[in-house]
């Protein structure tokens, strides 16, 4: 669509406008909105891998963790010095935040490349297990890295006047002689939804293009795609790397919002949660996945009143949903077809 660029600009302006009003929003709602945004980024990026390209990845939380820890530690360790160069103003912070986010995303996409190249030879369940294993490795490694807080989580660092940086040290000398830096709270409505707009427009444009159809062809029939001149390995790795990049960015946004990251935030359940959003929304439907991400962010909050039944209701809703619409909210029902419902003639198996 030719006007997609205009639509993108309009939405960026709208996001900027809404951001100006964000001060008047109740903090609790504001937090939910930001989480919804982060979940949209995670789910749509996973949808590129699982939905469009058909490679079942269960390790999205791992890429998110890399982005979150990488960007949070750069912010904490180096931001004070670099912000000093760019000035304390809003501009300096904005540029710095963008750089930090990109580094987090790039770090995650490098990890995606490293994991993707060997493991994308596998299919289906095997790929799911490999990616799951990978994300658990990341989590366990982080859990054992003292420099980023290990299993206590990464909150802040302490810069001593003599230049020694250490987390343990501060527990011993918790009085004078150091400056205190924590993960800065850069993430706001504007940044989160700017990324949301970029990923939604990017993926929609991509999937409409001739190049983008290649991803769907890989999902439908790898042998046919290959014989039509599609380098299936390259397409799969590309999807994986892009997906990991945005997961990394989502991680960075997350870390700079709650200013505290814990390895347990990126465990297996987190990956499953994102996969559920994709399946519930409909594999390969960006609109459906966005809506599912919003619903699955709000739903647990709405169910807070019935605390003890919360997970039961949540699980039941997902079960009912899968029974009624197995293809997801907006997924394409392959067995029904788009327009005509003329069934394909009985396929005789050619000898």
């Amino acid at each position, binding site marked *: 669509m*030719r006007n*997609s*660029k205009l639509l993108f600009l309009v939405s960026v302006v709208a996001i900027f406008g809404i951001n100006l009003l964000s001060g008047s929003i109740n903090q609790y709602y504001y937090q939910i909105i930001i989480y919804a945004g982060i979940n949209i980024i995670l789910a749509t990026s996973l949808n590129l891998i699982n939905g469009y390209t058909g490679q079942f990845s269960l390790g999205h939380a791992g890429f998110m963790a890399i982005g979150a820890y990488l960007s949070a530690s750069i912010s904490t360790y180096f931001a004070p010095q670099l912000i000093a160069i760019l000035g304390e103003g809003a501009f300096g912070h904005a540029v710095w935040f963008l750089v930090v986010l990109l580094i987090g995303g790039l770090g995650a996409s490098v990890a995606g490349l490293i994991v993707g190249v060997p493991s994308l030879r596998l299919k289906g369940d095997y790929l799911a297990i490999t990616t799951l294993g990978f994300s658990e490795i990341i989590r366990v490694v982080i859990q054992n890295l003292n420099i980023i807080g290990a299993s206590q989580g990464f909150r802040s660092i302490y810069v001593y006047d003599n230049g020694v940086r250490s987390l343990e040290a501060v527990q011993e000398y918790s009085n004078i002689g150091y400056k205190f830096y924590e993960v800065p709270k850069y993430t706001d409505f504007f940044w989160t939804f700017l990324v949301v707009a970029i990923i939604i427009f*990017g993926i929609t*444009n*991509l999937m409409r*293009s*001739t*190049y*983008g*159809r*290649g991803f*769907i*062809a890989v*999902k*439908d*029939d790898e*042998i*046919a*795609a*290959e*014989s*039509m*001149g*599609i*380098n*299936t390995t390259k397409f799969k790795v*590309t999807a994986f790397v892009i997906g990991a990049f945005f997961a990394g960015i989502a991680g960075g946004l997350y870390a700079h919002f709650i200013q505290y990251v814990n390895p347990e935030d990126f465990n297996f359940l987190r990956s499953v949660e994102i996969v559920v959003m994709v399946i519930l929304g409909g594999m*390969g439907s960006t609109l459906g996945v966005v809506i599912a991400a919003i619903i699955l962010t709000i739903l647990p909050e709405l169910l807070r009143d019935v605390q003890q039944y919360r997970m039961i209701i949540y699980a039941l809703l997902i079960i009912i949903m899968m029974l009624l619409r197995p293809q997801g909210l907006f997924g*394409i029902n*392959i067995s029904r*077809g*788009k*327009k*005509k419902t*003329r*069934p*394909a*003639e*009985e*396929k*005789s*198996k*050619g*000898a």
Partner: protein
Amino acid sequence: MEILTLNNCTIRFGGLTAVDSLTTHVGQNELVGMIGPNGAGKTTVFNIITGVYDPTEGDVLFNGESIVKYKPFEVTAKGIARTFQNIRLCQSLSIRDNVKVSYNKSCKSRLVSSVIQPGSYFKEENEIDEDIDRLLEMFDLHVDSDDYAKNLPYGEQRKLEIVRALATKPQLLLLDEPAAGMNPSEKKDLMKLIQTVKEKFKISILLVEHDMSVVMGICERIFVLDYGKKIAEGKPEEIQKDPKVILAYLGEEVKK
């Protein structure tokens, strides 16, 4: 001038020799038929040519260049396209998009320009769309091209596979049982169509078919496989009379 040469090609799967030292060729703008009883190794030959399998021994030359080590997508890029015995269309793509996938190798718009969509992107996409319209028109596929490919009747799905293969702009087209599951009148149309394609696109065609009326009707030269071995090669009339071919198809005459 030979476009494709198979030089002593052998492929073994464990103890089974599926194709046994096959030597043959396809000439420029020639329509060659490959026939043989079930399990003779015809599709395996296709898979060797297109790079799905590497031959255990021997060589495949395309325009004088060995293509044995190429992967299927590289072989397609070199100019060999194929269709499949069991139709392999993309289920979740429309008719148009199924064909569009084939333009990927020649498409200049890659990842970045597909996302940013500069002016040249739309120009290219429009050209592709027009090209697809021409191809669909030529193959008499007057259908809503935004409908799912799997909603097409069986015979038209086969035609769509040929369209998709042609869209890769091949020099050599491999057709794996294009007439399977078609009724006699559809078969007649298909024969005409294959000949038109050959003339219009100036390409060579290698055809596998069980229907003798099709093979004998359009092929300029035929070779016969049996248990992976080439048992005969020649003009259709010669093949029909060849005692070895009759033996392979009908079995030995009982002597009294």
